[in-house]
């Protein structure tokens, strides 16, 4: 077992929004900071630094996670989707459209994480009940909306009722 001192920074390869990326960083750099600073993907936000507010939520290998709680090294080889990766060129994802139509984004700071949480929810549960929506979004705090218009947006998207 080699006990040579670990190199300070490491090359970490991962896929972000469909594109292969390699970053050169400390293994304990937070994935949130890697996204925002190394990769200039500032759509993912920092609200609490403790995995409580969900504004740093992303999809990692298809699973919703709080990127502020993930060391960069643990993201090696993973497939990451951030809010920037959701729209298809100029075509918004139905949830993005639904959020716009229902007033689900007010100040917008929780919105990226909230939308990804909703994406994750609808992938697992395509026709969620209101209780399932509440639970699916329970880790994403919003201070502006009182949540109800967010639930409406998720319901609307789940019923494929989102107009263009």
């Amino acid at each position, binding site marked *: 077992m080699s*006990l040579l001192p*670990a190199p300070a920074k490491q090359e970490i390869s991962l896929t972000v929004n469909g594109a292969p990326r390699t970053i050169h960083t400390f293994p*304990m750099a937070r994935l949130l900071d890697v996204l925002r600073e190394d990769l200039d993907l500032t759509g993912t936000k920092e609200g609490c630094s403790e995995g409580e507010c969900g504004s740093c*939520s992303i999809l990692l290998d298809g699973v919703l*996670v709080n990127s502020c709680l993930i*060391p960069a090294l643990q993201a090696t080889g993973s497939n990451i989707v951030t809010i920037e990766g959701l729209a298809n060129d100029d075509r918004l994802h139905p949830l993005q459209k639904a959020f716009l139509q229902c007033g689900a984004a007010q100040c917008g700071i929780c919105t990226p994480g909230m939308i990804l949480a909703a994406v994750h929810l609808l992938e697992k549960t395509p026709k969620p009940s209101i209780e399932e929506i509440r639970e699916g979004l329970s*880790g994403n705090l919003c201070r502006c909306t009182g949540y109800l218009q967010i639930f409406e947006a998720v319901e609307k998207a789940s019923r494929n009722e989102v107009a263009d």
Partner: protein
Amino acid sequence: MRADPADYELAAPGTLEKVLALFADEPGTWLPIAGGTDVMVLYAAGKLPARKLVNIGDLRELRHIEVTFSEVRIGAGCTYTDLRQHSVIANEFPLLARAAAWTGGIANQNRGTLGGNIANASPAGDSLPVLLVYDADLILVSVRGERRIPYRHFHTGYKKTLLAPDELIHSICISRNLKGYISYAKKVGARDAQAISKVFLAAMARISNATIEDVRLAAGSVGPVPIRLIGTELALAGRAIDNSLLETAGKVMAQEIQPINDIRSTAGYRSVVLRNLLGEFLQGLPGARIDS
């Protein structure tokens, strides 16, 4: 973010064998990090004493759920989502599935592990009282081999455990012998989801002819460790369920717990509410004659 990543090492040996070898070489030096939902919070607050961490989140050896005829073996690296999605756990060990559903929001359930909850050893850990009433065993591993210990011996004091400096929790074993038990768990937090527990009661009982044949009770957040309420169980065993039993059991329970005032709640509240949860559990048992 109050920690400098440059000050920390994170090794990723990649296999359980290599991680254990590292522990053997340098016991007590490398802090394991699995899902990171506890460690990274301390880290970001600048309060993580360890400077060397070792990744165990990628160890496939720890992420399995084996079902045999007599027991279920849950790898310590299983996440709360893994637990919730497993049909045997959902059907036969519903308290564990519920505790998993109560632990943080979905994002944290996708990362947090059962082994991490145990090793972190917070008296507020939601799975812990449940494992106590399920009489779980832990399998601990090191280069020296495996040992199996009853989980109820694991916590020796506030954030102190039986885990040796070169050991990892490998799996959690729960016997599939809970037929005929009625189970109950309630977490009281500051809000309905994503809240640290203020009081927690897990309970199971087997009733025969309106008397308690066997009962198991475990509480969280009412002392330095999650606790099996052995004395209260003795006071309840073999009795008919009525108001005077509740009163007696309540008095015994009050002696077994050491709730404190802290940032989340008060000793007085915790005592009274735990007592109420016991009453709620007993009242729901067949043949109970307890006034609402």
